């Protein structure tokens, strides 16, 4: 059975924790996917989740905005605190939560509508109607997502007409438009070209001044480049729950990991 970290590492000297997870178990029907995960996510920092495929890191990511609620038969136990309030407490509406905790997906997923309408989608959902206000939000969000210059003259064109990398930045703009506090990124660079990857990595460094970012990535170099903290997840045996093996400042985790399994993974001995 996989042994993992069960106590949060204390990085409170670095800044406050935006998200705090304690003793989280996750089930898909009869299958337990995650066991006893305890970790704090620092505010205004980038935290990377790494680990081999199927180690539950994306599942864990979706616990923060309760996207797993959309999958029938899933069950969460334990606590996930956002600013000290449990997101799984009765009475919390996932719809409100997702406005505060935005998400970028692996596959760029612009809606089949214009670039402008894609970005204005969130604000409109939440009741912004004035054209001038929407114009301002759309421009600001596209600027923050570093895609404004490329699309400012074609805002009426379909979002699906953009290149993959532009689409992904459009999706980031779309999330920023609802002014979230946390941005979850589920392998945001795995389906796009290298130049765009560079742009999105640069973007993360800019965005963390205002947001708390969590990124799931298969790419260890990427985790090392963009993140301040790294969490390593592992499912040692098929059919067994995955656990958090190690969590540390990225520089430390990649240079002097404390756990043998982390060292094996980052030196490429498996996964």
């Amino acid at each position, binding site marked *: 059975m996989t042994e993992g970290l069960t106590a949060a590492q204390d990085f409170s000297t670095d800044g406050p924790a935006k998200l705090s997870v304690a003793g989280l178990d996750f089930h898909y029907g009869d299958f337990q996917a995650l066991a006893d995960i305890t970790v704090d996510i620092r505010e205004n920092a980038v935290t990377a989740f790494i680990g081999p495929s199927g180690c539950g890191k994306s599942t864990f990511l979706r616990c923060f*905005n309760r*996207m797993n609620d*959309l999958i029938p038969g899933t069950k969460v136990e334990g606590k996930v605190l956002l600013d000290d309030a449990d997101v799984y407490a009765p009475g919390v509406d996932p*719809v*409100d*939560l*997702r*406005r505060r905790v*935005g*998400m970028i*997906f692996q*596959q760029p*997923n*612009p*809606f*089949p*509508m214009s670039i402008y309408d894609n970005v204005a*989608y*969130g604000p*409109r*959902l*939440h009741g912004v109607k004035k054209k001038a206000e929407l114009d301002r939000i759309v421009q600001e969000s596209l600027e923050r997502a570093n895609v404004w210059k490329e699309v400012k003259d074609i805002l009426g064109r*379909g979002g*699906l*007409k953009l290149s993959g990398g532009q689409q992904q930045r459009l*999706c980031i703009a*779309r*999330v920023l438009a*609802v002014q979230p506090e946390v941005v979850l990124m589920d392998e945001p660079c795995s389906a796009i070209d290298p130049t765009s990857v560079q742009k999105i990595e640069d973007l993360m460094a800019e965005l963390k001044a205002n947001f708390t970012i969590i990124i799931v990535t298969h790419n260890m170099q990427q985790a090392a480049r963009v993140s301040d903290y790294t969490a390593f997840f592992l499912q040692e045996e098929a059919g067994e729950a995955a656990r958090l093996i190690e969590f540390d400042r990225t520089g430390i985790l990649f240079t002097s990991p404390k756990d043998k399994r982390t060292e094996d993974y980052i030196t490429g001995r498996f996964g």
Partner: protein
Amino acid sequence: MDTKRVTNALALGFLWVAAGSTVLILGTLIGYVFIKGVGSLSLSFIFTAPQGVKAEGGIWPTIVATVYVTTLAMLIVTPVAVLAAVYLAEYAVQGRAVRLIRFAADTLASVPSIVMGLFGFALFVEAMHFGFSMLSAALALSFLMLPIVMRTTEEAIRAVPKYIRWGSYGLGATKWQTVRRTVLPAAMPRIITGIILATGRAVGETAVVIYTMGTSINLPLSPLDTGRSMTTHLYILATEGINLPTAYGTALLLMIMILSFNLIARYIVRRNRRMQG
């Protein structure tokens, strides 16, 4: 030549004929109706009313009745079918009840149209006292169109990729907001195609309308007016041998209408495929 090659060539030949026969049948049919009907076709044929006992002159009132009744049927069926499909595809817990609804829709689609006509007569003309009217006929036709529109809409909704929905939920949209603002617009081209195909089916329907809107030639204005559809006109002219040239002219016009419905549906599908890449 050795026998293997001959057999091969023969087999290929038969396959060709079998496959080509569809096109051949359609081509012959359209060609025949065209040759027989094109002589009658003219602007005055379209825009004037039939004259005298032999129904010479034009067929304008029957065109109006046909367009009137199918438009009305489309307006009745679209909201019901689309809402039913949204419920089935997005909200209903997939289980016995949903399977029953789908089975009912499929069975409804296979009810012979003459039975639907008889039922429409009993229900709308008699029991509900709408009489022979555009309204009765439109309601009966909507029964015929309902399963087609509902199933194509359901398929269209299911074909909208999951990650598009996730994008919407991820921004804090409720289920209804996601359905209304993302899923339905994304599915719209295919939904419209379904509606057009069902409307084409209704335009060509005869049995249902004979029983529900009557056969008298007049220009329908109110939904409670009677009328004679193009198909009924064609049926009566042909079976009673009154005026065959006009019958073929009507047939040709009817086929042109239905063909253009199919072409419009194809165009929408193609344009959409291009746009969504």
